[in-house]
């Protein structure tokens, strides 16, 4: 699994070994590698920083407490993304404020202070996120995890309970819809 260059690049195998031998030490390695990817994955789904922070914290605590249930039948990354995705979707259902913020920002009907941690001046980036959030959930997830996180179709399938073929189809459908949206006048 590709990781951002800023992350500590311990392999998943080493992290799993460390977790089994010494959960505390192993979990620090896990957090070192995944804290940013997990947060940004959640943030892209919920938009609002505070919601993403809460969901990311819940996700990591769940990962630590349920690590004994990880059997290795999928990659560690897929397992982590599955937990993170579930927490993100729970948060998104609880609070739909994030989508409203993006919609309003694009329509220039909302003036918000910078401390919302959203750069409303980057209109193209705001519009792209709105395009992604308007997709059906499975296409949204397939696109985000493939485009931003570089996960393979198989890894995304494991994380979302789908098949690699479906993930690939969802990804390409998502890309096409995004391009159409970005090129439209809406």
């Amino acid at each position, binding site marked *: 699994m590709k990781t951002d260059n800023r992350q500590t690049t311990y392999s998943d195998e080493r992290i799993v070994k460390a977790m089994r031998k010494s959960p505390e030490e192993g979990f620090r390695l896990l957090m070192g590698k995944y804290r940013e990817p997990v947060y940004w994955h959640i943030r892209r789904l919920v938009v609002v920083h505070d919601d993403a922070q809460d969901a990311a914290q819940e996700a990591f605590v769940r990962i630590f407490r349920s690590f004994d249930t990880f059997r290795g039948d999928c990659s560690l990354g897929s397992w982590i993304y599955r937990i993170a995705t579930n927490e993100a979707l729970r948060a998104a259902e609880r609070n739909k404020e994030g989508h409203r913020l993006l919609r309003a920002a694009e329509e220039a009907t909302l003036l918000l202070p910078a401390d919302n941690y*959203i750069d409303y001046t980057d209109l193209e980036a705001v519009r792209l996120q709105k395009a992604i959030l308007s997709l059906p959930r499975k296409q949204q997830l397939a696109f985000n995890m493939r485009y931003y996180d570089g996960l393979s179709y198989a890894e995304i399938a494991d994380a979302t309970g789908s098949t690699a073929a479906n993930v690939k189809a969802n990804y390409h459908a998502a890309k096409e819809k995004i391009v159409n949206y970005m090129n439209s006048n809406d």
Partner: protein
Amino acid sequence: MERNFDFEKIEKRLPYTVPDGFFDRLEADVMREAGITTGKPACIRRRLWHKMTLAAASAAAAVAMCVVMNVETCGRQAYGYDDVEQAFSGLSNDDQAYILQVYQDDIFMNQ
């Protein structure tokens, strides 16, 4: 208006930011909530423990060496007769008399 959207132009740019130091705080909050008690990474705690153990062992070794060397050097240090006479003359009359009384029958000194 026709647009020409290109993924390669926007790349992975997001309109989202985070507060300074956010990820370190996130990690600390997770550790606390998960009940992982110490604030220092386990690898740093082990290094500190090794350093402390090494320092204690070094101190103990140094003390032992001082004791051994002190015992050994006492016997080997060469004092001349003049040194002894000077030291003896520095004692009070009562102390000189006491020493003479104690050692006048000493079987090693009077061989």
